[in-house]
């Protein structure tokens, strides 16, 4: 419901007398339209309209694209596809950087984690570097 003014009087609205009628009409129309769009006929009609639009506009789109590509070549500017391909490569580089970031995070975390093996135990059972071991 619309709010009223402080003095209680409703602000002037030329549509006020028609509001009830309008709401009833819209309610009925809404229900009818919901039913209408939920039919095979509507799906078929909108599908056909879209198909017609795409078919009719395809030659125009193609010729525009061709003309634009030729103009860009003449101006030594990259085409849309080339810019898109470059952007895709940037994304791949970003992903590799993100992978590196993840690896660095893991390394830093491993370095920060205190070793679980007690020092005394380590002395009892030392691990020799492979390079210093003597072979028989």
């Amino acid at each position, binding site marked *: 419901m619309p709010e009223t003014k402080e003095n209680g009087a409703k*602000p002037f609205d030329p549509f006020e007398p028609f509001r009830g009628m309008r709401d009833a009409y819209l309610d009925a129309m809404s229900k009818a339209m919901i039913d209408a769009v939920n039919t095979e006929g509507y799906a078929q009609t909108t599908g056909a309209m879209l198909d017609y639009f795409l078919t009719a506009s395809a030659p125009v789109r193609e010729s525009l694209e061709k003309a634009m590509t030729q103009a860009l070549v003449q101006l030594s500017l990259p085409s849309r596809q080339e810019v898109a391909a470059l952007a895709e490569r940037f994304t791949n580089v970003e992903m590799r950087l993100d992978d590196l970031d993840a690896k660095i995070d893991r390394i830093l975390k491993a370095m920060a984690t205190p070793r679980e093996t007690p020092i005394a135990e380590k002395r009892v059972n030392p691990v020799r570097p492979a390079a210093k071991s003597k072979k028989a």
Partner: protein
Amino acid sequence: MSGGPVRATLARMGEFMESFVPLEEQSLAFQKRLRTFTKVITTKARIAQTPKELVWALNKAKLYRYVPVVPARSRHRVPLLLVFAIMNRPYILDLRPGHSFVEFMVGRGFDVYLLDWGSPGIEDKNMKFDDYAMEYLPRAIRKVKAVSGSEVFSLLGWCIGAILTTIYAAMRPDDGLRNLLLLTAPLDFSKRENLTFARWTDAKYFDVEKVLAAFGNMPGEMIDYGAKALRPIDNYVTNYCKLWDNVDSPRAVEAWHAMNTWVTDNIPMAGAAYRQLILDFYRNNSLMAGTLHIQGQRVELRNIEANLLDVIAEGDHITPPCQSEAILEKVSSADKEIFRVPGGHIGIMAGSGAHKTTWPHIEKWLSARSF
């Protein structure tokens, strides 16, 4: 000569002129209403105002962390990552101060993150659900873990975001996902007679390849038309009548303005992802049938063991309840619950009653599982 008749005439003329004053006032009031109405439908409201910081970005995707307002010792230990649909802006979760789910959860001690997929360009037309769910989402989750210092986390997926989070949960069951919240999740496409979108995009009437060949990505305007055409009178007529009826109420106008700003902020959907949505989901119901393959691997819903809250909007015409119910039978989660809310697809989270129904339930459910 007496001045009586002249004075009387002048007095009557004065009375007559005075009778126009209220009319003039009313005319001014009408003009004011018209100005407000025009301004609201032609301008953008200030939205997404909860303070946040960018913590990660990849291509168009951005991960935000909302600035906590509760001291660290009082906060919930498990961070919450919000994932919205890929063809709408995610700020519906943080619409305006006092009416923001994000603000509500941050205020109740959650460490909240939001993944904004961004608007795909023509260079992103080959992005599939595989990329969103298995390349972007795991990376964002890694960052959430790194920033929060927690190895476990909660995921909230809404609409198509719920498909992505479900795929991720099924493909990476050992990643530390503790709680999975699905909001109006379109997962089951078996009851085609209840799905208007399924009828419209049937192979008999809709050539998805032709559309994508023309546009590359699915244009935001076409997606918007599709959503609005489900209830054409409500969206194209009644919605504006409601604004006119309430144009003198600043509160109602502010709410309408914010919602209209979100509704009209359309973004395209990456072409390959749209193709998958139509072919794998709407036409073949692959996820529920167990035949969906992501990055060459079958998605098995029984791998999901996280606690599951499935929020269903009873009046949802975009994702009818029948699309979200079957998931509970398919997962292995011991702790699973369906929460039904009266309201529509967006209304249950961003409507005027959301802070009394949906948000408190989510907060209570999540609090009990975020220690």
